[in-house]
């Protein structure tokens, strides 16, 4: 069957469009428009061209076995040597060519252990103005095995964040022990003996019932029988900052 004349003409137009598209896709437009590979290859090449500056823990260990063992048994086992001592590739190549620094100033430790409210609760943090000011950390702590020389006696030793919050609240003057019973073991092995939390409403009720002796607390007194159903108080109220809202 012979194709009608107009179909041939339409066919030519469509063929031209298809040809232009194919030409654009496979000849004219650069490959980098379609694929991330050229970018990745360029980035890899750029990075590969940089000189190696770190030696790595395994190389340090070859000569400094004693320090490695000490560190490996302590709390800093996951921290690489060069985190504190700086890149040591040149020292590893020739031990006399460059000596890695020995950071002894307080700032080196405070980078991780200075108080910062965003750090996790329980992470060892100190307030540098209160904690042995002007004394070098390394006089009491061995950085390779940084166990404190003696167990902390105050809750703030580990729970600085809570202490900071509580200090701004109406509960500032309440000692931790007025609500938590803390076993002595918790001070040396914190995870093995957790402190208690109030398990009944009477703990708060000591101050917050009508007619309580404390004049400040009786201002926010509640009827324990009518208020809050069967919930324990701290399920709704944050006791370290009761005026804040959950």
């Amino acid at each position, binding site marked *: 069957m012979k194709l*009608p*004349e*107009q*179909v041939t*003409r*339409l066919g*030519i*137009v469509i063929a031209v*469009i298809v040809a232009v*598209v194919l030409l*654009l*896709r496979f000849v004219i*437009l650069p490959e980098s*428009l*379609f694929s991330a590979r050229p970018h990745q290859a360029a980035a890899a090449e750029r990075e590969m061209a940089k000189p190696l500056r770190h030696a790595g823990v395994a190389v340090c260990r070859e000569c400094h076995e004693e320090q490695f063992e000490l560190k490996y048994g302590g709390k800093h086992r996951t921290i690489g040597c060069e985190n504190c001592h700086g890149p040591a590739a040149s020292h590893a190549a020739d031990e006399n060519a460059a000596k890695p620094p020995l950071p002894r100033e307080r700032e080196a430790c405070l980078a991780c252990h200075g108080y910062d409210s965003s750090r996790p609760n329980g992470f060892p943090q100190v307030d540098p103005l209160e904690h042995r000011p002007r004394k070098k950390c390394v006089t009491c702590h061995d950085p390779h095995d940084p166990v404190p020389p003696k167990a902390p006696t105050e809750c703030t030793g580990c729970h600085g964040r809570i202490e900071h919050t509580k200090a701004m609240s109406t509960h500032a003057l309440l000692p931790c022990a007025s609500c938590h019973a803390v076993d002595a073991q918790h001070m040396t092995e914190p995870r093995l003996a957790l402190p208690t939390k109030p398990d009944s409403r009477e703990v708060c009720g000591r101050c917050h019932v009508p007619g309580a002796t404390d004049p400040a607390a009786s201002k926010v007194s509640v009827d324990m029988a009518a208020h809050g159903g069967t919930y324990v108080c701290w399920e709704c109220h944050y006791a370290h900052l009761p005026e804040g809202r959950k």
Partner: protein
Amino acid sequence: MGFIYPNKSTWAILIVVYPYLTGIVAGAFILASLVKVFNVVEVQPIYRLALLTALSFMLVAGMPLQLHLGHPERAYEIFFTPQPTSAMAMFGFVYLWYLLGILLIEIWFEYRQQLVLMARQSRGLLKGIYSALSLFSKDLSPEALAFDHKASKLITIIGIPSAFLLHGYVGFIFGSVKANPWWGSVLMPIVFLMSAIVSGIAMVMFLYILLSLVRNEKLDMRCLDKIGLFLLVAIIVDFVLEALDYIHRLYQSEESIGILTQLVSSKLFLSLVVVQLLLGMLLPLVVLVLVRSVRFNEELRKLLYFTTSLLILLGIFSMRWNVVIGGQLYSKSLRGLMAYKMEITGIESLLTALALLALPFIILAVLYRLLPPRWMESHSPTGIDRPTGVLT
């Protein structure tokens, strides 16, 4: 107001205009297909008008997206770097297919005979334009004309699912946002599709009456009544679907129902309850039923059809607004309502939206001059023309 950050309203008025324009394209095409595929003879007088309307709106439909995204010079990249996991990216292909594969080819076959004749009868630049538009084709033999007719019928048959795809897709984009309870619904594509058909039919009806007034031509009342009937059916289906959507939401009473109720009864009350539902849907529904059951005279029917089509066009625009802007008027934490303040000037502004809404009419005016739909009635030499109004 803690709930405001960070969900700021980012899809503004241009994203309202975009589904509105696309819907009219799909609706106008489906109306045109009634003539070709379903042999509805009465609607023949508006067949070409419906096609030209679809083309005019189609040419503008992508512009709001280009303006919203910026960098229109990069638009071609979606065709060269296809991203099959993104519905938005694949839409470029749906749009392209519908424009190049369906609409232009159908219009070309439909107009080829007229283009050849116009090229013969005109001179100078116009002759060149018509010759080029007819792709320099000259064959007007009965076999060639019969082929044109068959080809445009075949393309319409492929075109119906394509038109459904074009607008069902727009609903799909919103319906698949599962994090937004106002949007995320499987009914969304089909609600969008039905409202598209309603708006397309209403737009062609509006244009048909308007053009007859402007050009002082006689309206074919049989045609107008038939369009009115299709409009009525489409509105009923659209109404049922939207009602089903709302009833379903109310009955399910998911956690979002509180904020959505608050949204509908406060921020969207005017645009949803008053404009979309009462003025844009129920009032036209009542009028169209009345027109069919009471014997009004021609002039009154014309007036009622004209007003109804305008109300429906307003109502569907309002529906797009309620979906796009409404979906961003409450916080995603479901805790409160937010505000949308429309810019007056600038890229995403009222003025741009008005310009984009006016542009299809300007394009249509040019197309109407260039390709007069009723030219064949007065110019065709006898013997090679098929009379309008009769289908072979």
